[in-house]
């Protein structure tokens, strides 16, 4: 066998290895319901849940509970199936948390609590402004 063939086989093996590990490490976007089922079946893999903060009729965020030492907090999140779940995050509340339009939590269920390892926030970007603020108009 020629050396280039051996190298070729090794390269293919390495590529397959990468694809397999990626498939193993890849997470998935699920709802809280599915996440809970996964946890109950003993699958403790970290998953992504996409949703929003729970809000009352007036649009105020509800269900935020900071810990006494302020170093962690939990919040109520509504997933895309409108299911609400309390999520715990072992970090102080990110500064622009309350303003977020969309929240992606990465984590898993620990008993009845969803523990987020990481939170991705989509905040209203200033670069997509569609309105000119009123006070700017009043400046005229």
């Amino acid at each position, binding site marked *: 066998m*020629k*050396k*280039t063939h051996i*190298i070729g086989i090794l*390269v293919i093996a*390495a*590529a397959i290895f*990468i*694809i397999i*590990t*990626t498939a193993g*490490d*890849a*997470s*998935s*976007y699920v709802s809280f319901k599915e996440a809970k089922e996964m946890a109950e079946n003993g699958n403790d*893999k*970290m*998953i*992504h849940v996409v949703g929003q903060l729970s809000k009352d009729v007036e649009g105020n965020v509800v269900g935020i509970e900071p*810990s006494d*030492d*302020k*170093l*962690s907090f*939990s919040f109520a999140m509504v997933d895309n199936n409108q299911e609400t779940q309390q999520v*715990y995050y*072992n*970090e*102080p*509340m*990110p*500064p*622009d948390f309350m*303003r977020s339009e*969309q929240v*992606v939590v*990465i*984590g898993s269920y*620990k*008993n009845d*609590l969803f523990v987020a*390892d*990481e939170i*991705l*926030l*989509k*905040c*209203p*970007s*200033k*670069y997509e*402004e*569609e*309105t*000119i603020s009123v006070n*700017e*108009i009043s*400046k*005229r």
Partner: protein
Amino acid sequence: MVNTAIGNIGHLFVIISFILSLFAAYSYLKSSVSNNDLNKKGWLQNGRLLFYIHSGAVLGVVIVLFAIIYGNHFEYHYAWSHASKTLPFYYKLSCFWEGQEGSFLLWIFWNCILGIILIQTSKHWEGPMMTVFALVQAFLTSMILGAVFFDLKIGSSPFLLLRDVMTDAPVFDADPNFIPEDGTGLNPLLQNYWMVIHPPTLFLGYATTLIPFAYLIAGLWTKNYQDWIKPALPWTIFSVAILGLGQLMGAYWAYETLSFGGYWNWDPVENAVYVPWIIQVAGLHAMIIFKNNNTALKLAMILTVATFILILYATFLTRSGVLGEASVHSFTDLGLNGQLLIYMLTFLAISVYFLIAHWKNIPSSNKEISTYSREFWIFLGAITFCLMGFQVLYATSIPVYNNIIEAFGGTSNIAPPADQVGYFTNIQIWGAVLIAILSGTGQLFYWKKMEKNKIVEALVAPFIIALLVSAIIIVFAKISTVSYIILLTAAVYSIAANGKVLWSIWSKKPSLSGGAIAHIGVAFMLIGILFSSGYSKVVSLNNSGLLYSSEFSDEMNRENVLLFLNEPRQMNEYELIYKGRRKEVEKVPFYVPEYQLAPTSVEYLYRVTESIKDDGEVIFDVGDTVEVSHENTYYEIDYKKGGEKIFTLFPRAQVNPSMGLLVSPDIKRSVSSDLYTHISTIPDPEKEKDWSEPESKKVRAGERFFINDYVAEFKGVERVNDVAGIDLGPTDVAVKGLVEIFGDAENEILEPLFVVKDNMIGNIPEVSEQFGARVSFVNVFPEEDSFELSIQTTQKDYIIMKAIEKPYINVLWLGTFVLMIGFGIATARRFKDFAKVKL
């Protein structure tokens, strides 16, 4: 008055530049296919002229757009959404390329400069090579064309008027000539000198990847299957260097400005550029193999094509919004997805066509590469780079797979790996180990035509040095992770082997030393990354064993500390004290405490309420108006050890009305490590303080009591003759009470006032920020010799911060510097080689 003329001129320049790039491509094409020498020359000169005029038009676009930004023409959407009046000149440059249209323009502009250089230097390659070049330029200029043909939007123009973008805004119904007072400003995170130089560098890198590609297509087209490498090689080295430098500048900016705690996060935005870069490095090595050995030509071709296509793919990923939920970065979708996709697929089709059509004619060598040849080792290196790139490409594209599956009606919910950093480093670290070993060994073979029996002799010295030095480091730095030990040993080996090569060639021919120096730089970078990332330590970690709730039994470490104002707190070997909020004041060489300033009606002007002194010398007196960078607040934190103050850090938080709170770290740098500190949370600055219900207290002089859990003493009263803002008549009385509060670090005396004016009783309370108390002096009972105070309390000012230690991060920056020197030497050498080519 809405200045429509300037935007129309700009738009006209865009249209001219687009049409001329097409004409230039056509002329160069005619020149390349023409058999008649006279025609050939005529079309060539035509193309050249058209490209020059095209470049002039592009320069016109750049000047007009900058004039709109610099001239505060906020009737234009681009200026309004990216700039504001008070920005200094260099940040107005950043505004220019903050938006997508501006960054495309930057890319186009670099292409013009490079095109002009290539016209001068490409010799007989000009016709076919510039055909490709001008065609790419046409695609790029179409991105900012802003034309609509039958509902099909082509490009997004930077010259749109605000009223045409915001057609729904009611203000324009009332007055179509409305011009906003000011723009919405530049994202404060981008107000950083790295953001002035990082985008131009990165886009120069993007632009230069086109050159080897254009030479390759020209080579295939004209059947010069081998010669294209000579002019392409120096440009490839240059491009690798610039693209690498651009990424590292971005990494350094992220380290200094963002607060995710490092310089690299394996975020899709970073990965999108990392992949083409690492493939380009592989391509560069394939070219070098070919130059020496006439093998690996096809590999060099494929990798050159892949680099360029991957740059287009990166552009597609980062600008199309396809990454949506996968990245923390916000992506704006300008509706150019289709156009970006067509751009990428067109050039993919062109490349594949040329490669397939000529594949059989491309010379390839059937000879087996000897294990003892340098080329064998370089080849293995190139393959390793490809695999490293493959992993990142494959995982970063996960959102694309979802989109493709959904486009065909399926559903897919694959998400990127939850632990991105872990997933990528687990594979990349082994790639890095291989690269270090191969670069060391390959270089040894490179410079000594090896015979089998001499190998041991050549390898033995670097090998022993590697074992010795890394053993010492492992013992002293207490490294115990197996993969780190192997990476460290491999990197030291690479330094030793390349150092040996460098030693032997430096005295003979320094111009050949580029490779050895670049490889030493890479090895140093690997060591720097190993320590600064692998041994990055959260210093503010406190394992208090706090349980969140009873059903939640896992203990969790807190990675942040809470600091109340002026209350010392132990954090590892340091004692920390948060000293208060500070502002940056124009013409004052230090940060000024916020309580010495009061806001005015203009947001960046403040009035001085307590004189600002430098070494006892008054810089600004009470009542002066000063200019303040109003968005930034700095939090003074003293680091003490054994009661001695060692240093002070000022991490920053920016309160931006439309973006919320943005935090940036402050870094204490020393030779061996960086101490990186950033704010995690502060009390909401927009929320009014909640004061408790007033609590009434009758006290006598010398009596002690509690205020907000602190011991306080009422020391007595003093008569006051002048009260600011109150005109005291002969029958009026003003008295101040002296209340001392005893803090952990220092005490504070509050002086609330009790005033009797025109037989009316009034009081002026005093507030202590640090103890969260407001004390009013409400009554005097002369017959009992006692006084009545009213006390309100509130949440004390606090910050929550995180501190991370990054050991030996300077080795990474040093390695970068060495790498760039190596690239510089290598580029110069290869350009000289091509300059010697006769026509």
